[in-house]
């Protein structure tokens, strides 16, 4: 639902990191699988946003989905739940999860083109 506001925050962040005079060809982000964000809508929002900005226009958004990883606070076992709606520990049966991975949205990298030196 809030893909547009995430994409807007991402664009601001990318623009701050972009070297002077460089153009952006690709942005790579990780999205935790617990986040309610749709990859297709993210790419759509990104494409719409960068359209009017010459330095980033046409750049691709590459998304890696990060699997949810849980540590059971009862027995310490680490596991990847099959679905977010059941966190039951395969070792002891408790639903006492500490989220190790699977939340958050992280900018991982950019690919840029520098203007060729005259």
């Amino acid at each position, binding site marked *: 639902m809030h893909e547009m*506001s995430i994409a807007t*925050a*991402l664009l601001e962040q990318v623009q701050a990191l972009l*070297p002077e005079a460089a153009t952006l060809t690709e942005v790579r*982000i990780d999205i935790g699988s617990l*986040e309610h964000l749709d990859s297709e809508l993210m790419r759509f929002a990104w494409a719409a946003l960068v359209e009017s900005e010459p330095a980033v226009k046409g750049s691709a958004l590459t998304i890696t989905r990060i699997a949810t990883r849980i540590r059971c606070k009862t027995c310490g076992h680490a596991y990847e739940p099959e679905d977010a709606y059941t966190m039951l520990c395969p070792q002891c049966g408790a*639903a006492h999860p500490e989220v190790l991975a699977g939340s958050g*949205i*992280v900018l991982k*990298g950019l690919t840029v083109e520098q203007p060729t030196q005259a």
Partner: protein
Amino acid sequence: MEINVVENVLKLNDEIAQLNRSMLRDAGTACLNLMGSPGSGKTLLLEKTLSALRDEMRIGVITGDLTTTRDATRLAAHCEHVSQINTGKGCHLDANQVRQGMATMPLDELDLLIIENVGNLICPIGFDLGQTVKVGLFSVPEGDDKPAKHPYVVLEAGVLLLNKMDLLPYVPFDMDLFLADIRAIREDVPIMKISAASGDGLDGWFNWVKRLVGSEVGELLET
């Protein structure tokens, strides 16, 4: 050329949320971030909470909606410090909006700040506001499957409320399923069944709020 970065995309929001958190800590003010679907009863619950606790603690409220000041008007009947934030098209409150709301309040004089988030069980979860604790509000007519469909709020909330218990005789709602679904995600989260309309179950909620406010705020702060 490749540039590698590892930076949270909501970095700016998270930084402002941490500022809010330290301002609240310095003021000794606990802060609730109340999240629930549109119409789940957030505002009515807050009206009841404000009027029940007004002699025991000083409370401020920041309420977010896409548009109108209707909730602020309802809440202002029970509370002196109410700030309405209109998010326009924004489907959640962000830390900066809360910061602006906080700036209108005498934080030092408040024991508790309650944030009524925009009606939505999806978007608000990912945005840290600087709260002490998140509260997830479900209601009976929304159906028994909402926790399973919104596991993130179940994972993150310090307490879950099920409102509109007075409607249980009139709508299909499998209570065992509702509870089992929550317990498959978090076995330890407190669940309170309430009716903001009739007042049933609200004493347990008021006591929970009093315990939050009475505890050392720093201890309970989310990091």
